[in-house]
């Protein structure tokens, strides 16, 4: 008896009804990702990468096809259960960081914990620990606009992993960063992948960034046209 991979999609399609014209963002995606993999998704813009990632992260629903996460058919889950998955099992990192602008770094990291029903010192301690992990605990009371892009993205990563997710989903996490910070962010993600076996899925345009990932998917027109494991292990 075979167990399902952590992520298992069959025939995923996504159609956006865009003012009369239907946009086929995904046209039949089959994808299996095992626990602990680190995967890069590449492809031209508009090829459906973000759409796929949103579905994988339970942020959106496919039009057709099935998506099993950790053995559960996500199509059977209600809005509340999906919110629970996003809160506990997934961590999102965005190109534009998406921090709450008026809140401190610490508070931004605390929010997912609040939504888990935690409160009090436990929240603060865990958020501080997450910041410390990425060497930015001294910036805890800074607001996003007092932080550099690299620092903001590290706060965002701290927020993504503060609840110890199974999967980190990063949509062009280095898209707005310079090379130094980009490499820094990638090293952080790689470290989590190696040390904690967190499954990491990264959308990127840059081959150098994709080079951190042992597995590369290439998408075009809503389909996966290439799925390769690198011969040489790039773990450094």
């Amino acid at each position, binding site marked *: 008896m075979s167990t399902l991979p952590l992520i298992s999609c069959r025939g995923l399609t996504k159609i956006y009804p865009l003012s009369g014209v239907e946009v086929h963002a995904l046209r039949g995606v089959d994808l299996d990702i095992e626990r602990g993999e680190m995967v890069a998704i590449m492809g031209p813009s508009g090829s459906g990468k973000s759409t796929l990632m949103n579905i994988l*992260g339970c942020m*959106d629903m496919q039009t057709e096809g099935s998506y099993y996460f950790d053995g559960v058919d996500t199509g059977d889950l209600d*809005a*509340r259960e999906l919110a629970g998955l*996003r809160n506990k099992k997934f961590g999102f990192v965005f190109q534009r960081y998406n921090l709450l602008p008026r809140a401190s770094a610490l508070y931004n990291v605390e929010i*997912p914990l609040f*939504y888990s*029903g935690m409160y009090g010192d436990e929240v603060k301690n865990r958020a501080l620990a997450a910041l410390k992990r990425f060497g930015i605990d001294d910036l805890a009371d800074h607001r996003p606009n007092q932080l550099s892009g690299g620092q903001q993205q590290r706060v965002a990563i701290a927020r993504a992993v503060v609840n110890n997710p199974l999967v980190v989903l990063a949509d062009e996490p280095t898209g707005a960063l310079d090379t130094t910070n980009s490499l820094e962010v990638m090293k952080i993600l790689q470290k989590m992948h190696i040390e904690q076996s967190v499954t990491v899925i990264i959308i990127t345009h840059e081959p150098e960034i994709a080079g951190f990932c042992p597995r590369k998917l290439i998408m075009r027109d809503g389909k996966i046209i290439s799925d390769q494991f690198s011969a040489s292990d790039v773990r450094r």
Partner: protein
Amino acid sequence: MSVRFQVLSSFSIDALKANKMRSFLTMLGIIIGVAAVILMMSIGQGAQQQVLSRINSLGSNLLTVMPGAAGQFVRSGNVNTLTLKDAQAIAKLTGVACVAPTVRGSALATCGNKTWTTSISGTTQEITDISSLEIEQGRFFSESDVNGISAVAVIGQTVYENLFDSGADPVGSEIRLSGVTFKVIGLLKTIGASSGGDDRDDTIYIPVTTAQIRLLGTTNQSVNQVQVQVQDINQISTVQDEIASLLRKRHRLSDQADDDFNIRDITQIQNTAQNVTGILTLFLAGVAMISLIVGGIGIMNIMLVSVTERTREIGLRMAIGATRQDILNQFLYEAILLSLTGSFFGIVFGVAGSKIFSYFAKWSTAISIQAVVLSVVFALIIGVFFGYYPARRASRLNPAEALSFE
């Protein structure tokens, strides 16, 4: 798994603080609404209390007999069915303590070079008991003055102030009322502040006979009203019935004929006054409620704008685990917080406004706990009602779409 209340409140307070101007403008509607409800109701209830306390001060063992059929407020002189003789007959009934017939009119009073238009009350000495009149100087006229048709007058404080120099002793001086000379024999104490109605200090009391014959030229002895003080308050309805049958007999009314007089006791007048002022209060409160509803629409408007403006934030919150309920709660909580804070300031301004109003308008106001509770509850209902729709809309957003919202 749900966000704790205190966390929720910190989310909401942060959001409201982040946009202070907008929060304030939203609250303004509620502030004005609540303040208006409290102010209006305090004015209405102040009026009610004042009218009732004035009526109560008349004494509850009083019956007032007026000419004309019941149901019509008759004050004109063209209903002449009640006479001085009727009053004298009533006085002889058992259970009646005393009777004061009154004719009313107004006259131009002259004293030296001063003139003053005032009201004339032609009555008997019993009025001092019935209306609780007290003498400050001199004396009230007596039964013999009434029988003798004496040209004597007892003046109220307002009349004194307008006809005499302050400090001057009015007793013994002569005044002219519509050309007839009267001797002032007494000055009344101030009866009290008046509200809205006629100034009872602005009256000259003269014997009823003198008023009828010398001043008003009434030939048929008719009076405007007869006030009857009953000995025992428990007997008041018995006495009322006796007066009615006496008058019917005296007026030779057939069995089928309607009464040509009407008798009111104080409770009747109280009820009427209470109804009228109650309606006034309700009307004022209704007007104020409308402004509260408008304030509620303001909340909805701002909440809708806020939801749209914060769509990305909502998307982000959902991406990191907020349930629909969490989002709904947050926005509802914001709406409730806005309306409660607004209510608080509304109460402050409403109470202050009511005090200021009563100070400048010389109209006592009464702030009731009902008005405060009513307006706060109403503001809260409005906050929840108008906050719910935008909140629900926010909570129904798809996280991916909300997050990519531009």
